[in-house]
């Protein structure tokens, strides 16, 4: 194998690395305009072109591709949710993620690690059992495990009783995985560009043009463009863009902070999450511990980091892994989480005709990137909302039919 690799390295005639095309001039009109060049927007454009033959598509982003919350999450992929609606939805996403590197011919470094949601109280054990049963019923691999099994799966965890919140059990979800979040955006961008989709970075949408209750175009800082349909996929600015289109959303935008440690030798295989302690931690392929916690207590449109967050998070991390006390934090950042009251996304139709929304992704957006792109593309192409995402429609709030997803990250039990 090493010789084969060496020979390959010295052999000429390989195809050059795929590059994104340079930004073209804006055309006066597109069939579909996607606002937001993150994972979701790019995936939507990709599946529009691949599955539905719609290639007259422009993806607009005020910054650069995948530079918003796609780059700011902790890259965890799982389907062990609580409500059947969510379990079905995220399970399809896990299936698409498994095939994504082959599908895109781009390595997204999908790595199945197993996912442990720790329970520190009787109430949390009960929720874990509930989630396991709902998951199994829908064919998703999850089970309730107790400290003897947890010790086998993750011997590094502090399972002592001599802590403030002893570990009583866990929801074990073997398909839980991590992936390289930037690669997901870049892979979809290349796949979409190969099929004729135009990618317009540094192109900010400044207004939504409407006539008779339907969208007819968008204003950008590079001029006005007409369009057939629009989909907004701008996590962290959803209310602001929806405000341009003239409607309000059930969203509060709150910072979600995270950080990574300096690189360590691989020691942590599974992804460890604790709803009670507001901790999630995994070890990336680079060896960095990727750590996140609860959302900030109030809304700010700013990616600042706070000392209180890190103090609280580290206190809990050290309870789980006391031997990390000497490890340094290498990077810190925050993303903007669009929190909905039922911890579920908002997808599909809006009060404006031909204007579709993909928002409310709070702390659960990255793991839904492929399924959301695929199903939003289907919605745009067919004009019908697929059954899979129908429970997440914007109008559910006016009907008092919220989804109530307490299996979301950063939700205490």
């Amino acid at each position, binding site marked *: 194998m090493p010789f084969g690799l060496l020979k390959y390295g010295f052999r000429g005639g390989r195809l050059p690395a795929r590059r994104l095309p340079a930004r073209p001039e804006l055309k006066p009109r597109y069939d579909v305009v996607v606002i937001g060049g993150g994972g979701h927007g790019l995936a939507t454009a990709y599946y529009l072109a691949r599955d539905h033959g719609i290639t007259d598509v422009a993806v607009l982003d005020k910054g650069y591709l995948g530079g918003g919350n796609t780059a700011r999450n902790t890259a965890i992929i799982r389907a062990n949710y609580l409500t059947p609606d969510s379990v079905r939805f995220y399970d399809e996403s896990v299936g698409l993620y498994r095939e994504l590197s082959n599908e895109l011919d781009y390595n997204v470094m999908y790595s199945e690690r197993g996912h442990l949601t720790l329970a520190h109280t009787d109430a949390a054990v009960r929720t874990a059992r509930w989630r396991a049963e709902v998951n199994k019923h829908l064919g998703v691999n999850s089970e309730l495990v107790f400290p003897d099994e947890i010790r086998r799966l993750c011997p590094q965890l502090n399972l002592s009783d001599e802590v403030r919140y002893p570990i009583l059990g866990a929801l074990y979800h073997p398909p839980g995985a991590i992936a390289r979040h930037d690669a997901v955006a870049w892979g979809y961008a290349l796949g979409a560009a190969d099929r004729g989709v135009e990618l317009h970075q540094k192109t900010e949408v400044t207004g939504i043009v409407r006539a008779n209750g339907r969208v007819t175009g968008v204003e950008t800082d590079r001029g006005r463009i007409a369009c057939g349909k629009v989909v907004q996929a701008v996590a962290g600015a959803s209310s602001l863009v929806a405000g341009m289109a003239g409607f309000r959303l059930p969203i*509060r935008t709150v910072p979600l902070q995270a950080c990574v440690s300096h690189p360590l030798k691989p020691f942590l295989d599974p992804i460890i999450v604790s709803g009670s302690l507001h901790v999630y931690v995994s070890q990336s392929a680079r060896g960095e511990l990727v750590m996140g916690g609860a959302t900030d207590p109030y*809304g*700010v449109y700013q990616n600042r980091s706070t000392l209180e967050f890190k103090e609280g998070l580290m206190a809990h991390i050290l309870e789980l892994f006391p031997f990390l006390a000497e490890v340094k934090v290498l990077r810190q950042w925050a993303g903007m989480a669009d929190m909905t009251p039922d911890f579920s996304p908002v997808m599909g139709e809006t009060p404006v005709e031909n204007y579709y929304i993909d928002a409310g992704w709070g702390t659960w957006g990255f793991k839904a990137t492929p399924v959301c792109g695929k199903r939003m593309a289907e919605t745009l192409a067919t004009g019908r909302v697929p059954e899979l995402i129908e429970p997440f429609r914007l109008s559910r*709030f*006016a009907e008092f039919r919220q989804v109530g997803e307490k299996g979301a990250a950063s939700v205490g039990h």
Partner: protein
Amino acid sequence: MKIMPCPLNGPRNISEFVCGGEVVVAPEPNLCSDAEWADYVFLHDNQAGVVREWWFHVPTAYWFIAERDSRSDEILRTYPASELFNKRQAYRPPKGEAKGTGDGS
């Protein structure tokens, strides 16, 4: 730690406070439609800029109003709720209910 100037308690650490959301005028629950009520309960302006919010000082159970820039997180002004809500609201019975009952007055 960020400091919140409380109208009752003076400057205190912001961890002593809870944000109660945007100040909005509640529709009359007995008279409004379901759609108006859902709008009031679920939908938010959630805009970037100067926002007017309810805040609650937990140790003293005191609600007040703060004006804050949601882009810079700068607290511009705080004041007692009585500055905005200074008129007594008369009870309005739901449609169909006999007048003069229900509020004990």
